């Protein structure tokens, strides 16, 4: 393979230009991935190693590229939601909502407060489930499997809630353009309340297990650090940027879906290392719980969808007995609703950074151009710089703490 030859040349060059030659230092080329269990996804890193120290690395991505941007150019707007599910599949609802809001911005629809609050609850539950995956996996990579198996039950409970809201668990396709498909049932409220009551206990146990654990601290502190300046230059957003000390959060900077109504704090770190990233996510879970409680307590009355018959499907019983409803139903399903011309950029705070949608509409049934600003794709570039000079085992922990999701990386 060309790349391997390139790599070898590079190594030879390095070897001949340093004094290592006289000691006959030989670098080893190691393929980390693409399907290594420790990388939690399809990532390939070709590492140049001096013993166990990483000298250099080169990333390959695109293994699960599915051409979403091209597919989106042939799909009506409502069918693109299922594509967004498969970006960051650990927190699909946030992607779904981000897409709905982008289209709502384009067609100029303000959705009722109740639907906005319901969306906030769903998005914050998704954020918790995403952070559970990331943080427990950091534990696994440092040798603590218990927290992972323990907290994953709670991720299941979040998925049960999603199942009661929309019928799906992982790739949720939750919500609709113009609101949500149905109001929360009493069962949903019961489950959310049970979650809010019981999860903090389990989560506190997880916190005590790792946060002040000497072994965990030694493995994660000063591992894979990045300065605030470099992080900004590399386009970091989300918890990874906040761990480096920059308090940027889209929910506060550019509030959407009524986030301005809620009281919550943005945790930040200091050194941008693995421990800080872990701690920022831990605190964000507490803040998410706080937001969900506020949303439940102050849930406004009203409808769960806006009055946009050309985008929001009519109730099924109307479709059978009402001419107008049948016409709307047909138009929506066939993707025949008129969309204004325009150019929109809308960003939401995804679980691992700013998820942006750049949408150009030429008034046709499909987007003329759709680009996803995927946070992973942008900050994963910094990975070689973050692991250079460290140990291989630290590189693994750094990768999990960045929360790079293959589906989002490759789109």
């Amino acid at each position, binding site marked *: 393979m*060309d790349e391997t030859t390139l790599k070898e040349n590079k190594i030879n060059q390095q070897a001949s230009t340093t004094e290592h030659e006289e000691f006959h230092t030989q670098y080893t080329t190691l393929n980390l991935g693409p399907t290594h269990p420790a990388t939690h996804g399809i990532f390939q890193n070709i590492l140049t190693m001096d013993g166990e120290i990483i000298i250099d690395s080169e990333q390959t*991505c*695109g293994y699960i*590229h599915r*051409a979403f*941007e*091209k*597919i989106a*150019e*042939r799909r009506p707007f409502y069918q693109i939601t299922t594509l967004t599910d498969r970006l960051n599949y650990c927190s699909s609802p946030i992607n779904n909502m981000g897409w709905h809001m982008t289209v709502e*911005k*384009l067609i100029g629809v303000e959705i009722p407060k109740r639907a906005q609050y319901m969306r906030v609850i769903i998005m914050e539950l998704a954020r918790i489930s995403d952070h559970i995956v990331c943080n427990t996996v950091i534990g696994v990579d440092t040798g603590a499997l218990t927290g992972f198996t323990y907290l994953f039950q709670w991720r299941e409970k979040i998925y049960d809630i999603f199942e009661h809201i929309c019928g799906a668990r992982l790739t949720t396709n939750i919500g609709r353009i113009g609101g949500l498909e149905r109001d929360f049932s009493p069962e949903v409220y019961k489950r959310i309340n049970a979650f809010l009551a019981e999860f903090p206990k389990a989560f506190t146990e997880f916190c005590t297990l790792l946060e002040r654990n000497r072994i965990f601290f030694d493995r994660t502190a000063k591992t894979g650090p990045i300065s605030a300046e*470099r992080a*900004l*230059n*590399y*386009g970091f957003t989300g918890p990874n940027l906040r761990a480096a000390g*920059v308090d*940027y959060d889209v929910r506060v*900077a*550019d509030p959407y879906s009524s986030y301005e109504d809620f009281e919550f704090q943005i945790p930040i770190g200091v050194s941008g290392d693995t421990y800080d990233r872990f701690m920022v996510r831990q605190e964000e879970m507490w803040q998410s719980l706080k937001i969900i409680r506020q949303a439940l307590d102050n849930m406004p009355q009203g409808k769960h969808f806006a009055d946009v018959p050309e985008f929001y499907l009519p109730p099924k019983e109307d479709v059978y007995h009402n001419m107008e409803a049948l016409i709307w139903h047909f138009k929506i399903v*066939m993707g*025949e609703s008129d969309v204004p011309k*325009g*150019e*929109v*950029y809308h*960003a939401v705070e995804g679980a691992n950074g*700013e998820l*942006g949608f*750049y949408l*150009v509409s030429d008034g046709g049934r499909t987007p*003329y*151009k759709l*680009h996803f*600003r995927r946070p992973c*794709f*942008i*900050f*994963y*570039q*910094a990975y070689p710089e973050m692991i250079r000079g460290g140990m291989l085992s630290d590189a693994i922990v750094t990768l999990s703490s960045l929360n790079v999701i293959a589906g989002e990386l*490759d*789109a």
Partner: protein
Amino acid sequence: MGAITNEFMLERLQGQFGNKVKSSEEPFGMLSVTIDPSSILDILRWLNTDRILKFQFLTDICGSHYPDLKGQELCVVYHVQSMENNIRLRLKAYVPIEKPELPSVTSLYASANWMERETYDFYGTIFTGHPNLKRILNADEMDYFPLRKEFPLEDATRSDKEDKYFGR
């Protein structure tokens, strides 16, 4: 200091770059400026160091293809933002498809590296000065740029979605 308005930004940008700023619009409240492609690096550098605007964060780069705009078929869209002032700005640079070249901004933003590679991968825009301009998501041996409009996605023989069935 009061919030920075789009008019102020545009005035300041035009004052600095004059005719390099070709046109502007404000779709959905975001200032969107079309600029001369060769000056993108200078403009982004100035935006980065300007003491008032402080556009120090490159949010996104992507491409777009407009086959009907003769002589400026490919468009590269830059989104920048100023976290301090909490404003966003969109810059668009149109380049001809025969010679789709514009300067790379990797010297300014490390994040631009993969964003430009992605844009090159899908649209074939050449970013001069890029350290490693090769395909990133598609297969290396691919010999076309898939997001250009001449590549239809679905089977061309399919007839059930023709416009005439929908009264268009």
